[in-house]
C-alpha cells in the first residue's frame, strides 16, 4: 500500500457539445473559475497552472505555452506553467506532472485545465487528423486507415475471438446514453437510445455503426489538486488519489504487446491489479467503474480487466444492465465519449472530473449513493498505453 499524498478538492466543467461561438479560451477561463470556486480557495494561492494541449494545434496552444492561462485567470501567485500531452492519456500524465510539482513543495495548489473546440475544424480536417492520431503516416495512412477503422478492427477481432455479439457491443452505447441522460453537461442528454437504434444507424466501418462511434465536440473542465495533508484542512470532502499504475504498449497497433485482441486484459489487468494493491483495495471495494473507452469495444476490454467479470464476458455484463444506472457495477457515469462527447485529450479529463464529483457527492441525478471508492482509467493513441487510478473520499485503513 502506498502513502496517500495527493487529493483533488474542486472541479469545474462546461456543457459539452457543438458550441462554435464559445472559444477554447472562454472554456478554459470559465472552467478554471468554476474549479477555484468549487474548491473554495484563494486563486492567488495557486502556484502552478497546467493545461492539456488543444488537440489539432491552434493559437490556444501557443498562448498556453507562453503563460496566457495564469494571467487571464488572475493566478497572481503562479510560479510554474506547463502544457502536458500524451493523447487520451493526457489526463493521467498531467496529473503526474501536478503530483511532481506538489511533491517538490514549490506550491500547495495546482490548477489543471482542459479546453477543446473541435467545431472550428471541417469534418475532413477532423477525419484526417484522427486518421493520423491513430495510425502511422508511413505504414497505415496510405491504405486509407481511419480511427474508426482501427476501432472497427479491434471490435471485429474481439467479437470473433471472444464470441461477444454485436448486440452486446451496442449495449455499451445504450448504457452510456442512460448515464448521459442524467448529466446536465452531456452532449447527448435528451435522446434515449436502444440497441436497435445503434444497430440500425449508418454503417461507418464494419462492424461499427455511426452510433458506436464517438462524436467530436467542444468542451472542457478543470480541477484543483493539492497535498492530502492540505486537503484535510481546507476541504470538507477531498478526493484522495489512493493508487495509480501505468503501462505502455506501442505506437502502431501492429506492435500491440499482447498480440491477441481478445486478451487485452493480459496488458490491462496487471495495471489494474497494481493500482488496487497500491490503494490497499480490491475490485469488491469499488463502488463505481469510471471506464474511459471512447469506443464500446475498449470499454469491454477494460471491464474484462478490472476483476469484476471473467475476461471476454463483459458484453454479457453490460447487456444485463448491471453497468447502467441502478446496476451493481455503475460504469462510465458521465456517459463517456460515446454520449458525453469526445473532446480530444479531454475525454479522460471529463471522466476524471466526474469521478471526483461522484466521490464528493456532487453528481446530481447520476449520483451513486454512498460511493466511497472507484476505479478510473485512461489511455491514448492507438491503444498505446493504459493508466488506472483508484480514488476515494476516505483513506482505507490502515491509515498511513
Amino acid at each position, binding site marked *: 500500500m502506498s502513502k496517500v499524498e495527493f487529493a483533488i478538492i474542486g472541479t469545474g466543467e462546461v456543457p459539452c457539445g457543438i458550441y462554435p461561438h464559445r472559444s477554447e479560451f472562454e472554456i478554459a477561463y470559465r472552467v478554471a473559475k468554476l474549479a477555484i470556486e468549487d474548491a473554495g480557495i484563494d486563486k492567488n494561492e495557486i502556484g502552478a497552472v497546467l493545461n492539456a494541449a488543444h488537440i489539432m494545434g491552434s493559437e490556444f496552444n501557443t498562448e498556453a505555452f507562453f503563460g496566457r492561462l495564469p494571467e487571464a485567470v488572475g493566478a497572481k501567485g503562479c510560479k510554474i506553467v506547463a502544457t502536458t500531452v500524451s493523447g487520451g492519456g493526457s489526463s493521467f500524465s498531467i496529473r503526474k506532472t501536478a503530483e511532481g510539482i506538489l511533491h517538490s513543495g514549490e506550491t500547495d495548489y495546482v490548477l489543471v485545465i482542459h479546453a477543446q473546440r473541435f467545431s472550428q475544424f471541417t469534418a475532413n480536417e477532423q477525419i484526417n487528423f484522427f486518421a493520423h492520431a491513430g*495510425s502511422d503516416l508511413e505504414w497505415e495512412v496510405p491504405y486509407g486507415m481511419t480511427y474508426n*477503422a*482501427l476501432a472497427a478492427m479491434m471490435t471485429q477481432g474481439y467479437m470473433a475471438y471472444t464470441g461477444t455479439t454485436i448486440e452486446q457491443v451496442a449495449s455499451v452505447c445504450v448504457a452510456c446514453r442512460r448515464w448521459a441522460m442524467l448529466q446536465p453537461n452531456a452532449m447527448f442528454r435528451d435522446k434515449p437510445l436502444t440497441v436497435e437504434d445503434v444497430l440500425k444507424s449508418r454503417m461507418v*466501418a464494419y462492424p*461499427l455503426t455511426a452510433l458506436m462511434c464517438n462524436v467530436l465536440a467542444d468542451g472542457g473542465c478543470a480541477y484543483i489538486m493539492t497535498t492530502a495533508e492540505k486537503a484535510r484542512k481546507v476541504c470538507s470532502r477531498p478526493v484522495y488519489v489512493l493508487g495509480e499504475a501505468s503501462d505502455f504498449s506501442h505506437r502502431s497497433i501492429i506492435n500491440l504487446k499482447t498480440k491477441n485482441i481478445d486478451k487485452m486484459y493480459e496488458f490491462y489487468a496487471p495495471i489494474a491489479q497494481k493500482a488496487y494493491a497500491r490503494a490497499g483495495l480490491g475490485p469488491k471495494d469499488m463502488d463505481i467503474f469510471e471506464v474511459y473507452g471512447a469506443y464500446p469495444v475498449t470499454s469491454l476490454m477494460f471491464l474484462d480487466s478490472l476483476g469484476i467479470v471473467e475476461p471476454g464476458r463483459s458484453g454479457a455484463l453490460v447487456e444485463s444492465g448491471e453497468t447502467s444506472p441502478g446496476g451493481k457495477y455503475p460504469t462510465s457515469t458521465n456517459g463517456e465519449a460515446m454520449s458525453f462527447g469526445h473532446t480530444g485529450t479531454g475525454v479522460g479529463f471529463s471522466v476524471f472530473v466526474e469521478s471526483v464529483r461522484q466521490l464528493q457527492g456532487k453528481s446530481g441525478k447520476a449520483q451513486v449513493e454512498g460511493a466511497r471508492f472507484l476505479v478510473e482509467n485512461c489511455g491514448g493513441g492507438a491503444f498505446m498505453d493504459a493508466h488506472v487510478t483508484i480514488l476515494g473520499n476516505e483513506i482505507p485503513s490502515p491509515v498511513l
Partner: protein
Amino acid sequence: MDSNMRETLKQKLKCKDEDFLKPLPVPAPWSKPFWDAAKRHRLILKKCKDCGHIDHPPYLYCTSCSSENCDWIDASGRATLYAYAVNEYGVPFAFIEDLPYVLALVDLPEGPRMISNIVGCDPKELRNGMELEVVFDDVSAEVSLPKWKPVLK
C-alpha cells in the same frame, strides 16, 4: 473520381483539390529499402544480424538489442488474416471513390503483423485466419503498396 462528385464535395464541405490527393509513404532513411523493394514487387523485412529480431516497421537500429548490424530478408509473401474492418463512410476525401474498402491486420509467418488492404475479395467472404498472399498496387510512378488477397484453394 467523378468530377461532378468532387465539385459537389468541394462546395459542400469547403475542401480543396489537394484534399483528394492520396497520402503516400515518405520513407525515412531506414525504411527506404522496404519501399524500393516494394517498387520492384518484393516484400522484404529488416532483420538484426546480431539477435535475429525482425522489426516492422523498421527503425534506425534493432528495437530488441539496439544493434545497427541489420539485413533485409525476403518475406514469404504469405500471411493470415487476423482481424479486419470495412470502411464504408467517413474516410478522408482521397479514399471516397474506393468505398467500401477493407483494412486488415495480417500476420506474417516471419513474425511481424501489418496493416494493409485486402483486395480481390468480397468483404462478406472474409474470415479470421484465412490465408493471404501479397500483391502490389502501383499507386504512383514511385510508390507501390503491398496489399493482400485471399489464396484461392
